[in-house]
């Protein structure tokens, strides 16, 4: 009940933000919504399956570059086509990567995902003619539901139609992910996270489920990556760099991987905190490093954990 009210309040606040909020803060909501989509997927792997990926920037990069290629190399501008293409390409790339990575766990899984991320980063950095190298590739303004909005000033486009479009994508992504984690599949993932050996004796094929979770999380990362492109209008290799993968893990930890909405909260706090810290001190990574250390020591369940820790579980209340 409380969660439902909180969700309704957050949705209402997001819906009215462009009408009452300053342009600058509304623009900050765009990367938040894109990252929230990415992290919903990442947390299916992290919080629900127990696998920490340090290479998911690979799939964010794939989504972003897919959009950039489509808009700059073809006449297609439809964001629906871009998101669908990003999802399909993300899944296609994720399948072989997952097939190899999910056979390993813990640090070996993390290092393998990191390695694949670095391979992709090097590819987009070095294949200049194809990717634009370190300069990147332009992501031209996409049309939304068949409307080009060409005559609209960029800021109006981003804080208006694109904002609500992103919000709708985030809403849909949240709904779909909620169905997934509340499904029999979601339960099987949790058994694998808690005790893979026991899960196998119950007939749950651990490798197969990890593979599916990985591919789904990659699809989410690619869709989120495609949403990151239009606000900046350019996609460059830093999106696929390993520090970006680290930031994704940071956001998840910050919000709390044990909670469904934790990573979404983490994305929100990260974006606004980063913006604020960068405006105060140039060494924002120094501050964020200290914050990460504090979270791990004081609140390992993240910001969402701080809230739920005070509230007894249903069984304890009974």
């Amino acid at each position: 009940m409380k969660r439902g009210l909180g969700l309704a309040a957050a949705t209402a606040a997001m819906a009215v933000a462009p009408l009452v909020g300053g342009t600058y803060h509304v623009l900050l909501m765009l990367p938040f919504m894109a990252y929230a989509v990415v992290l919903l997927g990442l947390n299916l792997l992290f919080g629900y399956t127990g696998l920490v990926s340090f290479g998911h920037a690979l799939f964010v990069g794939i989504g972003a570059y897919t959009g950039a290629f489509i808009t700059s190399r073809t006449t297609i501008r439809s964001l629906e086509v871009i998101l669908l293409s990003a999802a399909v390409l993300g899944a296609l790339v994720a399948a072989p990567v997952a097939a190899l990575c999910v056979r390993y766990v813990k640090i070996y899984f993390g290092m393998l995902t990191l390695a694949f991320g670095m391979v992709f980063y090097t590819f987009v950095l070095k294949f200049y003619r194809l990717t634009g190298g370190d300069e990147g590739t332009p992501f031209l303004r996409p049309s939304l539901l068949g409307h080009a909005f060409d005559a609209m000033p960029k800021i109006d486009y981003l804080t208006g139609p694109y904002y609500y479009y992103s919000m709708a994508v985030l809403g849909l992504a949240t709904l779909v992910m909620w169905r997934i984690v509340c499904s029999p599949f979601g339960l099987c993932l949790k058994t694998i996270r808690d005790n893979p050996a026991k899960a196998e004796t119950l007939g749950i094929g651990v490798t197969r489920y990890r593979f599916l979770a990985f591919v789904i999380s990659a699809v989410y990362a690619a869709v989120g990556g495609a949403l990151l492109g239009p606000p900046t209008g350019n996609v460059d290799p830093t999106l696929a760099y390993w520090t970006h993968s680290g930031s994704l893990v940071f956001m998840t930890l910050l919000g709390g991987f044990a909670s469904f909405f934790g990573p979404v909260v983490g994305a929100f706090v990260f974006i606004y905190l980063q913006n604020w810290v960068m405006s105060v001190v140039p060494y924002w990574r120094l501050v964020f490093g200290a914050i990460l250390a504090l979270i791990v020591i004081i609140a390992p369940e993240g910001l969402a954990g701080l809230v739920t820790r005070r509230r007894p579980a249903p069984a304890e209340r009974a």
Partner: protein
Amino acid sequence: MILRADGLRKLYGEFCALDGVSLTVDQGEFVSIIGPNGAGKSTLINILTGMTPPSSGSVRFKDREVAGIGSVRLARLGMARSFQLVQIFPDLTVLETLQAAVVSRLGRGTRLFTSLARDREVQAGALEVAELFGLAERRHVPARQLPQGDKKLLDVASAFALRPEIILLDEPTSGVSTADKTAIMETLVAASRRIGLRAIIQVEHDMDIVFAYSDRIIALHQGKVLADAAPAAILSNQRVIDTVIGRRAATG
């Protein structure tokens, strides 16, 4: 005959953990495997349940060769197991643990968009097993918060929730109080009748439990079968008494 093992041999480097073990389990039997530490009991269970491949020999379950095929495929074929050291899903509730087993049994694990809460067959199946094992009142308690005896029960109950044809229990009463042991065994036997289990194999150290519930006892010593007989015959086997049971237990 539901399960048959022939000439099972397991080598760990130079060490021979099992040396030509053969056994059969017929429908309706409750078979106990006994032996001193290092006799090869757990190795045998691990091989029979497909977790460890034998160095040589065969295991046939329902007329199918199953040696080394892995516990996932064996579970789907109808063989379940519980562990000596209690195995639970710490963050899942009792009901969720049992639901996972029922979901697996019904082959619904890859359903991504159906609601688990609205799947009446899964809910009813899990609740039925929870009631059968006396865990219904604690169904919303996370497994890690259960007392040790209930954790053990949950481990066994989740195996029963698969509705297997045969179940292999590795020391089902280890780590629980003497008072809880009989209760666990009574629950287990009642549950096996209720779900129509075709056979039970257990590894057990407690001879009171072994002789109270077994139709047949297989005594292992140094990786070999020392005796395979009914409880009364085992009690009159001097070698088994000397090496496995102990004189005081045999007369007590």
